[in-house]
């Protein structure tokens, strides 16, 4: 019995507004609300809602035999809550059928796995909490930002309690191995599910390409390919950006009809659908798949060059992650919010010069050139860094700051504790008068140096 495992990644960054350098230090709001609402509404109306409707219909018509997984970034969930709450409802409906699995990923769809382990863990935890609170499901399988993966990242993922992870079935790490198997992490307990690049791209990029020799792609043709897998190959993982349904392949291309026809064709060919967790539960393979260099699902190279391939991206990322520890110390909600949104990997993708020279495909998003993307981002980042610096000056190193913060934060509880002690001592005053004398000045003296410390830090 052959199985096909569909997963979709959903993410939309908060668009940054045009931010000139003379606004640094005066304007602390970074987002283009109009563009954000506009793009989220566009995605909701052309992709999320019709695609969810299609998938729900498919699940209902097959009595739950059609299965699918989603990886939705926290940043997008927040925007959906604000601009298109009906999309959240429609995902709830999907999840309630029991045929839908939600995957874990870093909250901000960030590159934190590459730059800061602690930040990565914090974001993954936050994302899991968000998914739990919205949909009542705890992610068990991990799908990192743009399928970025390496052995080291696999280790983090496993430590966070995930059973499995999706990764790109990149030719250069698979070698002679087939993508249609599950594999093991070399040294931690983690099952790896490689994505079948070819079969995924057939839908995501070639479905509406008239020049493709297999055009038009029909459901029976597609299922035949799945059914024709070699003996011993039981799973095929097919994943893509959710935009493949309705954005990259417009509704007129017939993409929704193609999906609707899949379960019937699958039934004829005895192909069934599985979620990543089910694939992991059934996996028997003990082969190891290893990669020291991080891989991703981007471009031909399947590497990180789209996000940190040039000097512009290098400088922006380095400046950003240099303050991550400091930002984690702080409690200012506005700073925390901006911190997450500035990490979205799209910000760096727009700065890529990889496809720039003489290429027709624009990778610069809302910007005219990678340079403009960089300028705007750096201006905003400069303001952000200034704000962080105002709270926690860079002249104090992290450890010193940490201990000072501990003193300040514990001040209240310590005072209460000491006051209780005084009261206790006062109560026991008559039997042992001598004990009270040294205790009183000590308790009174205690808050004073602490306040001095507090003042000192804020002044700096």
């Amino acid at each position, binding site marked *: 019995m052959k199985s096909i495992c569909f997963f979709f990644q959903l993410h939309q960054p908060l668009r940054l507004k045009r931010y*000139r*350098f003379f606004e640094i230090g005066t304007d602390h709001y970074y987002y283009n609300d109009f563009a954000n609402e506009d793009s989220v509404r566009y995605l909701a109306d052309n992709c999320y809602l019709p695609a969810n409707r299609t998938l729900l219909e498919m699940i209902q018509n097959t009595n739950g035999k059609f299965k699918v997984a989603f990886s939705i970034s926290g940043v997008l969930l927040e925007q959906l809550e604000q601009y298109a709450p009906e999309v959240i409802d429609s995902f709830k409906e999907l999840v309630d059928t029991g045929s839908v699995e939600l995957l874990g990923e870093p909250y901000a769809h960030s590159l934190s796995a590459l730059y800061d382990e602690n930040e990565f863990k914090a974001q993954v935890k936050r994302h899991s909490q968000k998914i739990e609170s919205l949909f009542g499901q705890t992610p068990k399988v991990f799908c990192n930002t743009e399928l970025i993966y390496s052995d080291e990242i696999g280790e983090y993922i496993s430590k966070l309690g995930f059973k499995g992870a999706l990764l790109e079935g990149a030719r250069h790490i698979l070698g002679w191995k087939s993508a249609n198997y599950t594999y093991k992490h070399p040294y931690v307990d983690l099952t790896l599910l490689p994505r079948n690049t070819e079969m995924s791209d057939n839908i995501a990029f070639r479905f509406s390409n008239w020049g493709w020799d297999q055009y038009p792609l029909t459901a029976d043709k597609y299922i035949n390919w799945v059914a024709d897998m070699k003996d011993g190959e039981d799973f095929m993982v097919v994943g893509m950006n959710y935009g493949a349904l309705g954005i990259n392949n417009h509704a007129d291309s017939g993409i929704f009809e193609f999906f609707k026809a899949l379960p019937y064709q699958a039934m004829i060919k005895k192909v069934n659908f599985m979620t990543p967790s089910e694939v992991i539960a059934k996996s028997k393979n003990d082969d190891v798949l290893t990669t020291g260099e991080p891989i991703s699902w981007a471009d031909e190279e399947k590497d990180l060059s789209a996000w940190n391939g040039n000097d512009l991206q*290098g*400088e922006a990322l380095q400046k950003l992650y240099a303050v991550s520890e400091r930002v984690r110390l702080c409690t200012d909600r506005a700073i925390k919010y901006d911190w997450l949104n500035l990490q979205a990997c799209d910000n760096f993708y727009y700065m890529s*010069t990889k496809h720039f020279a003489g290429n027709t495909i624009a990778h610069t998003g809302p910007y005219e*050139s990678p*340079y*403009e993307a960089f*300028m705007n981002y*750096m201006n905003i980042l400069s303001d952000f860094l200034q704000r962080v610096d105002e709270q926690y000056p860079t002249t104090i190193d992290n450890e010193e700051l940490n201990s000072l913060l501990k003193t300040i934060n514990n001040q209240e509880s310590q005072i209460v504790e000491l006051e209780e002690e005084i009261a206790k001592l006062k109560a026991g005053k008559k039997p042992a008068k001598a004990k009270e004398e040294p205790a009183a000045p000590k308790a009174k003296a205690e808050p004073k140096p602490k306040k001095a410390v507090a003042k000192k830090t804020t002044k700096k």
Partner: protein
Amino acid sequence: MNALMFGWEFPPHILGGLGTASYGLTKGMSKQGDMNITFVIPHPHGDEDQSFLHIIGANNVPIVWKENSWDHVNSRIGKTMHPDEYFQLRDNIRYDFRRIGTDELGCVNFSGVYPKNLMEEISNYEAVASVVAHKGGFDIIHSHDWLTYPAGIFAKHISGKPLVIHVHATDFDRSRGNVNPQVYDIERRGMDEADHIICVSNLTRQTVIEKYGQNPAKVSTVHNAVEPLADRDSFQKTPRKDKVVTFLGRITMQKGPEYFVEAAYRVLQKTRNVRFVMAGSGDMMNQMIHLAAARNIADKFHFTGFLRGKDVTEMLSESDVYIMPSVSEPFGISPLEAMQVGTPTIVSKQSGCAEILDNAIKIDYWDIDAMADAIHAIVSYPAMYKSLHEMGEDEVNRITWEAAGRKVRAIYNKVLGWN
């Protein structure tokens, strides 16, 4: 293939971009091997590089029959033309041009610059063209810029060979819309008579189509290129404390100098380690000095006066940013020259060169905020400087006259119906 070209300038004696472009294009085309170019200019000095083309000085072409001995001709013009060629040309005088003032050789004394009696020179040049055209020996005629259009048209009528005109600028660029009707008339007639029109940018092509009413099918764009710098390594930036932002060109309305001053003012509000240099001279120079003083940035804003030759390249290579905020620039070669020495460049979107450059910052000439932002980014964010510095130089080294020459050749073939 034999081409007869009419031009106005040729290096080393040049007054503007036209001469540089003529040189680059003909040199690039000569690499095709089977391309013989005869280039007519009003006044050669004898030190022109003739290794890849044949130059005819219009001031050596007789338009009125005068008897002279071979030795006399040799002593008079031998430096720039072989006397045999003089006599061959003399045999092709078919019209009576005695109304035109000539010397004892029957030649017109062209100034070769842009004199007061420019219109007279243009029509005298036309007379010279008739003699050259009657001599024949070419398959196609190519006229560079409006001054030579009348000559090209006359040569076309005489020889019956197709005419290609090369629009390096239009009067709309030079005058910000207030065109000189006489110039417009010459330009318009040249375009109407031409079998094909080559423009140096899509911007110019648009002007030609819209303002001169030309059929888009006969208007093509061939972007200019830049000659490789032979002594690149001799230009290195000296490290200094303050960053240098440079404007270089004629200080005149067309080049948008006032936007540069305003942008400088914005930048200096936030950053102190930047200096601004306005190199060149022009009718708006005093106005700019006043403006810089009025904005109270004169201590950080410097004027160099007119620069020439090696000083230009040196100035460009010593700069951290080169900026060309032209209001209307048909092509604009200087940003490419700045990029050749690795200087990050900002150009206005109203410049033709912006169409072919990726690794330069493009802004609208009136958008002072964007201009200031770009300057600030290049001087404040090291990666920005480094990327533009490296990738810009890389990119500009790939823009060759040879490729431009091949495009021109394809147009020749199309016009002639050769394939």
